[in-house]
């Protein structure tokens, strides 16, 4: 198997440099791009297995890049973003990005995210298992049964549907609008309080300490993420 290829789209040379160093240490072949246009050319010719893209680029918005890329490629995209721009993160995720990392970030965090996203892609290709596990929770997707520590739990239909959407996208950040659309259907976009209530209920049922969840994690201002391997940062 040849080396996987990662495309790093970032206008700061030093950041590109250390991302490249970190990824190469993990066995990636890295190609770089500085502008949206260049990025799209690289993505089309090199067919990367992973894209890491900054949002603020000299000739345009990273979100535009993602939207253009998503027209023909399903490659995992991780966005680099500053801490205060939650709205940018949401629009990038809604445009098709899979994950985001907040600047400044360390090598460990970058590599962990990379691994998680690659694993998700790999798992997605394999035949879906009917049994899904995280922590001490076991979800039997075929029988629609949820067990925790071997004890069967009762979920309402909405709770189950919410959990189902999270499982189908395990590891990914799901934005509020996406979850509302998937669980309640279109026309519920503004009702984020539904999410808070039902996510609270799910945590009560599935988490050891609902105030410090390990699996049903809040990404403040952005959405939620189901963390399967709780050791992952």
């Amino acid at each position, binding site marked *: 198997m040849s080396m996987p290829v990662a495309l790093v789209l970032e206008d700061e040379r030093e950041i590109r440099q250390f991302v490249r160093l970190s990824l190469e240490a993990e066995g990636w072949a890295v190609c770089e791009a500085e502008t949206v246009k260049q990025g799209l050319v690289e993505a089309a010719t090199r067919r990367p297995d992973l894209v890491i893209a900054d949002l603020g680029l000299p000739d345009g918005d990273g979100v535009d890049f993602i939207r253009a890329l998503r027209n023909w490629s399903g490659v995992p995209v991780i966005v680099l973003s500053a801490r205060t721009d939650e709205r940018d993160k949401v629009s990038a995720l809604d445009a098709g990005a899979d994950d985001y990392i907040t*600047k400044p970030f360390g090598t460990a965090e970058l590599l962990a995210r990379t691994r998680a996203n690659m694993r998700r892609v790999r798992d997605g290709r394999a035949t879906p298992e009917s049994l899904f596990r995280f922590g001490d929770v076991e979800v039997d997707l075929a029988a629609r049964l949820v067990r925790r520590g071997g004890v069967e739990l*009762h979920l309402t239909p909405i709770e189950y549907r919410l959990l189902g959407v999270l499982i189908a996208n395990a590891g990914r950040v799901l934005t509020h609008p996406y979850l509302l659309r998937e669980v309640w259907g279109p026309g519920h976009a503004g009702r984020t309080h*539904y999410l808070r209530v039902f996510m609270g209920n799910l945590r009560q049922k599935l988490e050891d300490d609902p105030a410090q969840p390990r699996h049903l994690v809040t990404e403040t201002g952005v959405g939620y993420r189901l963390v399967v391997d709780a050791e992952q940062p």
Partner: protein
Amino acid sequence: MSDDQRPDPDALLAQIRDDEQRAGRGNLRIYFGSSAGVGKTYAMLVAARKLKAEGVDVLAGVVETHGRSETAALLEGLPVLPPAMIDYRGKRLAEFDLDGALARKPGLLLVDELAHSNVAGSRHAKRWQDVEELLAAGIDVYSTLNVQHLESLNDVVGGITGIVVHETLPDTFFDKADEVVLVDTPADELIERLAAGKVYLPAQAERAAKNFFRKGNLMALRELALRRTADRVENDVQAWRSDRAITQVWKTEGALLCCIGPHEGAEHVVRSAALLAQQLAVTWHAVYVETPRLQRLDGARREGILQTVKLARDLGASTAVVSAQSVAQALVEYARSHNLSKLVLGHGKAARWWLGRPLGLAVGALAPDIDRIEVGQSQRSRPPPVPREKGVDAGAGIGEQLRPYLWAAAVCAATTLLTHALVPYFDLANIVMVFLLAVVGTGVWFGRGPAVLAAFFNVAAFDFFFVPPRLSFAVSDVQYLLTFAVMLVVGLVVGQLTAGLRFQAQVATHRETRSRALFEAARDLSNVLTVEQALEVAQDVIAREFRAQVAIFAHDANDRLQLAPTDAAGLDLGTAQWALDHNQPAGLGTDTLAGSAWLYLPLKATMRSRGVLALRPAEPRYLLVPEQRQQLETFAALAAMALERVHYIDVAQGATVQMESERLRNSLLSALSHDLRTPLAVLVGLADTLMNSLPALTPPQQALAAAIGEKTLRMTDMVTNLLDMARIQSGEIRLRVEWQSLEEVIGAALKSSHGALGQRPLSVHIDPAVPLVECDAVLIERVLANLLENAGKYTPPACPIQVIVRPVDDAVRISVRDHGPGVPKGREEAIFDKFTRGTVESATPGVGLGLAICRAIVEAHRGRIWVEPTGPAGGATFNFTLPMGVPPPLDMADAGAMVEPGAAQR
């Protein structure tokens, strides 16, 4: 529910308007009696004392005891408002102190004698207007009134008793009173009381008053008072019924049209129409139709008519002056266009049979469907208003009126001379044509009367000078009789027609001038861009159109009225302010300060009044004409709209500038933020890469690289804090509020400050009663993270930290409690200031911005943040509150039925 059960929408609307107007208004109770001496003041005082005993703040504004000891005894113990002293022609007269009462603002004010006329120089001419202002200010008022003072009954009472009362109260005001209490004493008892000296009689009027207090009079007055009260009670019942939709009572159609004639007795017709309209509970209109003949009336008569029109308006009518050839035609057109089905007109004794049918019949012929109500003549008609400047006016008038006739005679003479020269060359038949031409010409230039005169003169002249035998009125050939007849008829007809045409042309010109003036004013005002321009244009236009001195008061930057530059004198800012506050005209020709030479009109625009227009017309009579008044109000509205438009231009410009500067600030901050953070992000990454680089670094080198990374991260935090503070300071914080679960926000904060807390045991307690809270999750997480990081920074390792959330009153209180050294005493407030830290010298890093940011965020959420010791052993508890709202409900359909997914499968 059938249709007629439903309350009529118009009536409901009127009711809502009424209720709205009444909200916040004081209540008015009138003690109503048939004559003096029935005990109104007594009854009022008894009621007032009772209320005072119940603790109501009662104040006697004016109470006339008339020396009656029983009444005076009742007044004892009630606080009395001292009267205002008003200087009038060197004398000092006592008058009810309106401003004193308004300033004192009692719960209930006693104001005797509602119909009283105030001393000249008071704010209002009438006491009831004072009461109106008191009610508007929210003060409850008790007052008294005799039946003969009611405007609509004034005539009737005068007719019965022979004594004319000049102090009157508009019926509309009486009907608007919230309560009317009838104080009734039988006639015999009243006469007994009079005989016993218990009724006050002024010495000088004793004889007249004795005449007044005859039994017949008293019985008639008593009946009037009882019936008027009964009418009112019926109205109340109707109002109550329509309110509760028992059945439809109010008629919205069938409104009245009152025709105001030029004759004496028109006032009587107006009063009758007002009474009728009130009894029928319908709206009414009053119209004066001005024909060419009426246009030639002298000034005093016209003013009298305009006063009658004003009386109608005061009695609640919509009024208009219509110019037309035919009175009947104009009335029918007006009635049709305003959907009026009943016409009230005077029984005209001056119906001139030779000019045609009486008005009533004429209207009947034109519109058989309109009901006509003819009002009989008043028994006691008021003398026609004495014409002022009689001598001058009449003399000038006659001279003015005679001139066209003299001209007509001159034309006839000239024609005769001219034709005389033509006789040798032309046939007599053709010469007649010249005479005819002269008649037509006279009609065209001088109107109907001179044309008639010219027709007669020309016939005579033609006969005398041209028809054989000449120089004699004898006629040899009978044929000429036909010539004479034709000439006369043609002269009359042409005169009539041309006069009519002239009048129509005049009316049309007048109308055109008015609409042109409006159009020009609108055009000029639509071009202005600044307040000064608008004021100048409006002043010029109105001054020109109304031949008046004009000044405009406009708001200045501090929202105070200020006079635009003008050379006008005698303006009063107080009156202008009054007009603005009450949104009513004041001064000349109005009910408020009518003695002023200026008329003050508030400039009403859509959103609010934009100022006050002051106008001093050269001819005050001019303003009495309803059309002129409407025209003036239209101009005022135009000016107000222009001012409002200019105001909003300013507002819009201000907003654009603000937006622009905000945008600039934001882009500056983002650029700064990007430029500061990027190198830091690079440093963190590079330090990390260094640590993991191959071949591996030696342990001391590794430690160095780790230190670089760690310090850079701290540096990033500080930069973030500084930038956030700059953002907060540069303008208000933009909150993106959503209904948030605090559990979730706390969870996120704990996760992000995980590193700062280290091994300290952490517990979270959230009261299950805490609902979703409306807040900006990102910012509140920031507050929590700052507080937690502080706790981590200032407490020894392994020191437990608690987060507690519980509802307190109408807020949610979030506490972060530690058991460290606590905040130094006396610094509890100061630590929330910028660049302030608990301990002045400390090895702990930080610049003291964290808590300042927390405070800014919490205060933007309308919350409070403070610190207190955790317990006697020390420790610090940081608390902040967020207001508790009512979260939107969950739709049960969306919430999903509570069915177990597993169970559903089975």
